[in-house]
């Protein structure tokens, strides 16, 4: 699970407008606990992940970066820019909406976040699914289903900025910006300039009165 799950509004009157940000089991008011990444750390993290993707795949020729709405798409574009910068290869970037493949349709509001756009045939390619936060793994499961209907990639890998644990499915990330131990009740809040119009950063928020 990622930011997307949290983007489904739990409470439309929440101070942040009720949309976005990661919600685990969080209920009630949350306060800021810690900043995990500032803009510089985030940039370094992007750069490292980009290098790792190229290294693992012996180049970037067959790689397609597929971002999961909303922040995953922004991260995918950043990774592609980084790869282009140091490798001189233009990696195709797609956007995937997994809403229709979720396993909690009907259990809570699930809204598509944008049209799926994959610019190339993914058959035989290495698809790197890109998201901001890996949590329960249910978003990635839905994404794997969604991908299957678009073609048969040679391999699928997962890149995330933050792995916060608490997996509910046998899913793991191949490329991780930071492993971040969290409590279920905490939120991991990702802010990206091109999505949120504010400075890059990742913060942990938790219920008041707990440590």
């Amino acid at each position, binding site marked *: 699970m990622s930011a997307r799950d949290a983007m489904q*509004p739990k409470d439309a009157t929440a101070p942040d407008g009720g949309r976005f940000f990661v919600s685990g089991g969080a209920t009630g008011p949350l306060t800021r606990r810690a900043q995990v990444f500032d803009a510089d750390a985030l940039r370094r993290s992007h750069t490292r992940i980009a290098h790792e993707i190229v290294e693992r795949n012996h180049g970037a020729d067959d790689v397609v970066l597929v971002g999961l709405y909303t922040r995953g798409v922004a991260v995918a574009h950043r990774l592609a820019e980084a790869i282009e910068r140091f490798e001189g290869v233009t990696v195709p970037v797609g956007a995937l*909406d997994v*809403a*229709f*493949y979720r396993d909690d*349709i*009907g259990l809570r509001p699930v*809204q598509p976040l944008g*049209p799926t756009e994959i610019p190339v045939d993914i058959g035989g390619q290495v698809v790197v699914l890109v998201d901001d936060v890996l949590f329960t793994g249910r978003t990635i499961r839905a994404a794997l289903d969604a991908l299957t209907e*678009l073609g048969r990639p040679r391999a699928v890998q997962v890149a995330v900025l933050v792995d916060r644990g608490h997996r509910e499915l046998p899913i793991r990330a191949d490329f991780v910006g930071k492993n971040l131990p969290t409590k279920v009740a905490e939120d991991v809040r990702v802010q990206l300039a091109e999505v949120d119009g504010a400075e890059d950063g990742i913060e942990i928020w938790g219920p008041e009165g707990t440590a």
Partner: protein
Amino acid sequence: MKHLLSIADLERADLDELLDLSDSFVEVTQREIPKIPALRGKTVVTLFFEDSTRTRLSFETAAKRLSADTMSFSASTSSVRKGESLLDTVQTIQAMGVDAIVVRHPCAGAAHRVAGWVDASVVNAGDGRHQHPTQAVLDLLTLRRHRGTGLDGLRVLFVGDIGHSRVARSGVQALATMGAEVSLAGPPTLLPESLEGWPVTVAEDLDTVLPEVDVVYLLRIQRERLGAALLPSLREYTTRYGITVERAARLKPDTLIMHPGPMNRGIEIAAEVADGPASLVTEQVANGVAARMAVLWSILGSGGRIA
């Protein structure tokens, strides 16, 4: 959103959301395998008391593309012919366990009645001359895909039998909600008796306004609903209100032509115009599936934020 009975139930933000959703579904319908598991396990029944080709097929296609199960009911092949009432018919369907009922009926308000009887969601697929909300959604979608998201100030002219037209009633409301400027043209006998509450102007002379509009929306001459008193002759209608090749030549080069179908070629629209580059008729049909997917998803899938 529990039901979709009238376009008047939707505000601009709701329509915007529905159209954004529809864009997602347009992408799905263009895939090699145009099917997603979104509504697996849901059952949609189409309950049609009037003849229909595209609306019914469109709803069934939309439901199937979403992996819902579909059942289909036609008055002409059912126990209605044995005298079964609407209430009994609906209760029978309800007892089979359905999640959504798509209703078309010749009486205005029928879908509304059905919605009051059942637990399932109800979508109005046309009730008499009253409403046809999903047609309005697909028309907005089609225009938006051509003109971009802002329909503010778009000049749309409806031509023809406005009085009998549920397409016009829903379409005018929807377009006005989105900020378009709507005008009507047609024989005075085929305009509504009162235009009170209609956000429209009436064009006195068709040929004067044609060069000024961005969209010409043609309505079908509903021969099954018209007597000689309302429309003396089809040929006279065509002469005065049909979009002939000559009339089409008076339009701006980028004016779009729409028609909800089925078309009477040679009456309200010349075949050359219907098949010409300005015509959006087949696109309307294609977008109809995506728009209805959006409606079904909003009702059955999302847990409901719209309306």
